[in-house]
């Protein structure tokens, strides 16, 4: 018979093996893309795991960079305002939903939150017609305006839930001293919201950066295409240039991965807080 100590150690070892096997399995596809991005096509065709002959080259990255640099810049031009605008507008609205009571407040809030469930395609078709009328089709600013509006429902939900957990003593004290709502919002509430605002910044930026569908239907001039469009475009119909495609994938996903690495805590709080009601 095993002693209980031996059994405990055995269980611990098994748990470690299971966990790390799953992790390695999960990492394998990404490993492949990284390996392929640094090697010539002939070696990719032979399998990136094949290590008999390894030639390290930056050719793939050079090619991907030339094809995608404009797209990456465009993605930045869209993602920056698409992050800042809903941040400000959403914080103001969330404050109203949390601190004021007004006619139909809860119904309006439910309406805004339920917009999160709407499929993008339901918005996409008439959005194209609308943007055409507003002369905002094939316009990066127009796309940013849409992303701002589209991100608002999540931002409002997340910030309102966060506000509900904050104590109101400071605000009440300031109000007794005669401070206006606008003053209280900017000088007392906004600083308290800082962690939540970080979550919104990293997540909203990542989501807009990662978006493909709305770029696909609204932007079509070659020099205005976003990075996601560029990447899919050079996949080609029959001959897939895997080396360039893998290098391009890395260029595209580097930004969200760096954001995640730096702001991991806020990233996860945002994902969890946006779904579980506070």
């Amino acid at each position, binding site marked *: 018979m095993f002693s209980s100590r031996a059994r405990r150690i055995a269980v611990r070892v098994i*748990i470690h093996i299971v*966990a*790390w096997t799953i*992790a390695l399995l999960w*990492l394998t*596809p*990404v490993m*492949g893309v990284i390996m392929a991005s640094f090697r010539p096509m002939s070696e*990719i065709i032979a399998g*990136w795991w094949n290590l008999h002959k390894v030639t390290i080259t930056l050719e793939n990255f050079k090619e991907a960079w030339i094809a995608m640099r404009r797209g990456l810049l465009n993605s930045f031009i869209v993602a920056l305002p698409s992050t800042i605008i*809903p941040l400000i507008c959403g914080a*103001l*609205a969330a*404050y*109203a939903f949390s*601190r*004021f*009571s*007004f006619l139909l407040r809860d119904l309006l809030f439910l309406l805004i*939150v339920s*917009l999160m*469930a*709407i*499929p*993008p*395609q*339901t*918005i996409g*078709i*008439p*959005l194209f017609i609308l943007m055409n009328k507003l002369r905002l089709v094939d316009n990066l600013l127009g796309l940013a305006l849409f992303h*701002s*509006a*589209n991100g*608002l*429902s999540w931002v409002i939900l997340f910030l309102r839930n966060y506000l509900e957990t904050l104590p*109101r003593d400071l605000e*009440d004290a300031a109000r007794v001293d005669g401070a206006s*709502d*606008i003053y209280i*919002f900017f000088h007392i509430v906004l600083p308290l919201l800082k962690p939540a605002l970080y979550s919104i910044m990293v997540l909203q930026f990542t989501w807009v950066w*990662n978006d*493909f*569908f709305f770029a696909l239907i609204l932007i079509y001039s070659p020099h205005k295409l976003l990075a996601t469009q560029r*990447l*899919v475009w050079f*996949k080609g119909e029959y001959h*897939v240039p*895997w080396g360039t*495609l893998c290098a391009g*994938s890395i260029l595209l*996903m580097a930004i*969200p991965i760096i954001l*995640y690495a730096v702001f991991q805590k806020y*990233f*996860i709080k945002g*994902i*969890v807080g946006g*779904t*579980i009601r506070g």
Partner: protein
Amino acid sequence: MPRIGLNKQVFLFLFPALILILIFVIYPILHTFYLSLVDLEGHFVGFKNYVKTVMRSEVLDIKRLKHFPKKSPPYGALIHNILWIVIHLPLTTFLGLFLAALLRGNIKGASIIKTIIFIGMIIPMVVSGIIIHFTFEKDTGVVNLFLSMLGVKPRSWLAYPETALYVLILSSVWLWTGFSMIVYSAGLEAIPKELYEAAEIDGASTFQKFRYITLPLLKPVTITVVTMTILWELKIFDYVYAATLGGPGGATNVLALQIYFDYFVTVPARPDLACSLAMILTFITLGIALWSLRSLRR
């Protein structure tokens, strides 16, 4: 103590957000609803388009479906989305819960493992589609290396209608498990330790603790995970677009892709078919979301 704000002030705080949402989100939705009720000449036809859009082989291929699973996909986009839910939902939910529970014990490098599992949630879905295509391709795909050890001949798994859809569905577990894992982790952490301690004093086994404390307390978390996962499965687009574009021969077509094709690719555009299909999808997702909100409130 909620304050009764002056109407002017409330308006000031709400105006910027509401005007943006009204113009760019709510107005388009209502427009889609309108377009779903009229024919191509603009005459009101009631819900005729809804029947027409579902009763075509791209959306619901009853002839092939009758021979499920002997005949391979395509069964139509609607069935493909349903298959996505049937296969993907239990897999990611259980795997996420399993990983969350597993990584709570003191495992060396638990946070690194979590980060690795979470990668699929961070990277663009078009990149995920490309990565999966690469991983299952005949010459470049590492999957073929593993399968050749089992004696399976290498092939491009996404090029055949028999395998393409199932490969995409199973691979999307790789993408989405990070979500359920993270949400379950937060849910597990929120359970007070005293409950387990009290149960231990009463002599409860590990299984009993899981069955009678963990599971019931995780119910709201599970509702959230299941809801968000179903919505994700119903809305899937970028991933399929980048991996297969719905091919081969429509075998991996999904509703979101079909709506896009109907309006933006088919010449001449079919707003009647596209919008009615979009509204059907909307009613389903909205219904699921409201059901989950109601059950969470309870």
